[in-house]
């Protein structure tokens, strides 16, 4: 019983940050900009958010409650700024978008780790390679949590889980129902038509990539709070790439992407619970850690063939070309 409950609790805490990062990726890719930079964007978000949280709680004396929510705002900003760089390189710099995404990841990783060490030593005066975050408070909904099995969905919830669910609903509305969302999707399929309709392709794409950065940053911050309770070099474990794999199964649409995230999240948490239950030594956790990655490859084998990516994805938009 507790096995199933814990699987659900941990699975939700893992899959929701993954989902919001994947949705960010969908925004960027539906607008026609390949975004392999999700890993770097989320890492940059986690770094700026963690730094802001640390400064707010230890230096400015803001209580951890508001600091928690504000840190997500800073995480979104950090991700957005790096997203702007990706957009600049891809749109104005005419960079190869695949290479550019990987380069952004390398940049984010080296810059954040360098800054963490330097800031810790130069400003806070202690040599350390991490920024500690308090462990996030978790809430249990009274009453609802008593329902067998389903109650686990209302037990030990991180506040960010609620935030991400709300953001997901807003993002779905924006992408599928709003005028901006329609223009965005048109940019990914037929940018020349968008241009002919008198709209600014580059501007729409730039905004899409910035949204992608902001959502990735929020997802990264959520991972920093839930999995590690700190920001350090160990943050970069490739969850950004898992998010990309999720959106590829999801065929660049939000609801099927949610399904992929559910599979990843629950496979991982169930694996952990089973290793713990069987009482294997901790080195066996390494073998469980490969579960989401193996699952990604296996699922990609079955799904990739049927997929249809946005038609103009990854192409540099050239007005003169027809």
């Amino acid at each position: 019983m507790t096995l199933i409950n814990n699987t659900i609790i941990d699975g939700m805490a893992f899959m929701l940050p993954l989902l919001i990062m994947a949705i960010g990726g969908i925004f960027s890719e539906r607008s026609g900009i390949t975004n392999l930079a999700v890993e770097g964007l989320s890492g940059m978000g986690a770094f700026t958010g963690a730094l802001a949280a640390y400064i707010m709680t230890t230096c400015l004396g803001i209580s951890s409650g508001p600091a928690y929510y504000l840190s997500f705002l800073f995480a979104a900003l950090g991700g957005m700024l790096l997203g702007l760089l990706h957009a600049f390189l891809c749109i104005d710099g005419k960079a190869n978008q695949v290479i550019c995404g990987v380069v952004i990841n390398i940049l984010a990783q080296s810059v954040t780790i360098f800054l963490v060490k330097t800031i810790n030593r130069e400003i806070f005066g202690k040599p350390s390679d991490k920024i500690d975050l308090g462990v996030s408070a978790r809430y249990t909904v009274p009453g609802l949590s008593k329902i067998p099995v389903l109650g686990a969905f209302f037990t030990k919830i991180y506040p960010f889980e609620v935030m991400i669910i709300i953001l997901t609903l807003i993002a779905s509305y924006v992408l599928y129902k709003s005028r901006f969302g329609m223009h965005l999707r048109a940019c990914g399929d037929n940018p020349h038509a968008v241009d002919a309709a008198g709209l600014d392709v580059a501007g729409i794409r730039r905004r899409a990539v910035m949204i992608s950065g902001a959502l990735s940053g929020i997802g990264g911050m959520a991972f920093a709070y839930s999995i590690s309770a700190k920001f350090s070099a160990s943050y970069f474990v490739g969850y950004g790439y898992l998010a990309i794999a999720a959106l590829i199964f999801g065929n660049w649409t939000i609801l099927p992407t949610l399904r992929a995230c559910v599979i990843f999240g629950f496979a991982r948490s169930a694996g952990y619970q089973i290793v713990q239950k069987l009482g294997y030594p901790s080195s066996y956790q390494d073998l469980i850690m490969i579960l989401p990655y193996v699952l990604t490859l296996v699922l990609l084998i079955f799904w990739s063939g049927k997929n249809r990516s946005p038609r103009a994805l990854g192409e540099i938009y050239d007005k003169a070309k027809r």
Partner: protein
Amino acid sequence: MNSRKDRIRTAAVCIAAGLLVGAVIILLLGKNPLKAYFNLLQGCGLAPKGKYASGKGMITDLLSYVDSVTPIIFAALAVAVAMKTGLFNIGVSGQMLFAGFLATVTVGYSSLPAVIAKPLVILIGIAAGALLGSLVGWLKYRFNINEVVSTIMINYIVSYVVSFFIQTRYIDTVSRQSKLIRGEARLTLKNVPIAGYKCDIPLAIVLALAAVIAVHYLMHKRTLGFELKAVGYSPKAAGYAGIGVGRSIVTSMMISGALAGLAGVSYYLGYLGSIQPKVLASTGFDSIAVCLVGGSEPVGILGASFFLQIISKGSTYMSSQSGLESEIASVITAVILLSTTMSTVLMEFMRRRRESREKRRAENDSDQ
């Protein structure tokens, strides 16, 4: 001719941008950038240090630097071969670890004599890397799986599985790494006295130089190289011309993987001699920078390897001398990488400038 000049100039601009940004950061931290950059050279044995530990000298550092460049050359060639075919192999570090681990457990701990062990290590490295590489190529052409996603997934899988085996079987409890391999299997001869100094002789550098020539020959003189490049330019056109696109993708990834495997054995069984669990070599990512700066051409890569490795290798000494974090090296490399992504625009800018200059000259000539 001019396009090659432009390429070299673009690389120079990118490197200058990286060094400039690095200098600004170092200045902001209140340190002297020129001194820091000189420390980089000292750390690589390219400039004399103030004092040396007993039995060590400039040549010790220089050979150690060459030893550390060797895997980078292989790795960057691996990236380049894939890139020519339009594939982006960021799984080099995973392929390196896989090859290095297999060679370590099969030959590294065995009692084979050096004449058999060393070639065997190299062969296992090539085979293991080629196997993993062609798997990626096969997944790409058979199931349409983006090689970037699959190589990243394989990177993590290899890293965790190798870490599991090292921690359960081959761990050295003091160093927290895998046990040091035997000298007979090692591709670097350790502590050889040269002119009174203890030096490490990197044997694999000879192989690396041969690989540079071989890849150059393959890409420019052989039909296979032409086919791979054709698939890279336009898979559709190549297909119409009767080139097997699927076969080319698998072949390209196989060669790329084999080179990555060589990088792996020269890194883990040469430069290091052991494997640290749960860590993927940064070589795999540095090699992307080297490949891009080198313009994906073998000769350019050779130069870029030696140049960029000064930054990474020398950073440890710089850190100890000036108190800067050694991670500044990866920041500088990342900025160089960022600038290379814009090389299309840079080249276009140079071409346009050259054209307008030529036009002006032509006008002046006609005026006279």
